[in-house]
């Protein structure tokens, strides 16, 4: 069955530090992969997506993610976080005909 695992429920980093959020997926075929961000009380905003091609994907707000088929991973990175990056981050995989399966999310806290 398709699934997405985000092993870190909470992550705290200092402003200006680098960030990596982990995501592992389980899917039989070549996956469509997404990272979304959700601020408190808001809907989800697409940060980046991977459908095919270059395994290093650039997104908005300075984020990037790398697809590693051998590790079934799609980790999100940012070289230097800003206080405004504090939010919940969801990794997701496109599964089959119509649905997207989301992980449980990682809440990012930023220390000043």
């Amino acid at each position, binding site marked *: 069955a398709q699934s*997405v695992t985000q092993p870190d429920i909470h992550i705290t980093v200092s402003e200006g530090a680098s960030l990596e959020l982990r995501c592992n997926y389980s899917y039989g075929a070549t996956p*469509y992969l*997404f990272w*979304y961000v959700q601020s408190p*009380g*808001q*809907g*989800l*905003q*697409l940060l980046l*997506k991977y459908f095919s091609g270059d395994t290093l994907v650039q997104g908005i707000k300075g984020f990037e993610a790398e697809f590693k088929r051998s590790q079934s991973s799609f980790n999100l990175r940012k070289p230097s976080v800003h206080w405004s990056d504090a939010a919940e981050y*969801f990794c*997701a995989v*496109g*599964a*089959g*005909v*119509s*649905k*997207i*399966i*989301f*992980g*449980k*999310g990682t809440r990012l806290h930023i220390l000043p």
Partner: protein
Amino acid sequence: DAGVTQSPTHLIKTRGQHVTLRCSPISGHKSVSWYQQVLGQGPQFIFQYYEKEERGRGNFPDRFSARQFPNYSSELNVNALLLGDSALYLCASSRGEGTDTQYFGPGTRLTVL
């Protein structure tokens, strides 16, 4: 261009009642998907509609139903509300069906008392 819009923003109902949530997709998008997000969890897929036809259904009871109109807007209906239906209901639109990139609205917060 306007993004995905949803109404109402917040809603309070009591157990056993019925609720209708509405969604207007981005102009030019023909597909609408609905998700339920319980507090502290990721969104769970409920339905996808494309060109007014149901293209996918998640693991939700028959109390949940939806439809899409000729202008591609959509309604999600939930009958016989339970306390466990309290959640943020998200609508997403995309140009095509399937796992084409989905753009999400702000959601409707439903509280069942």
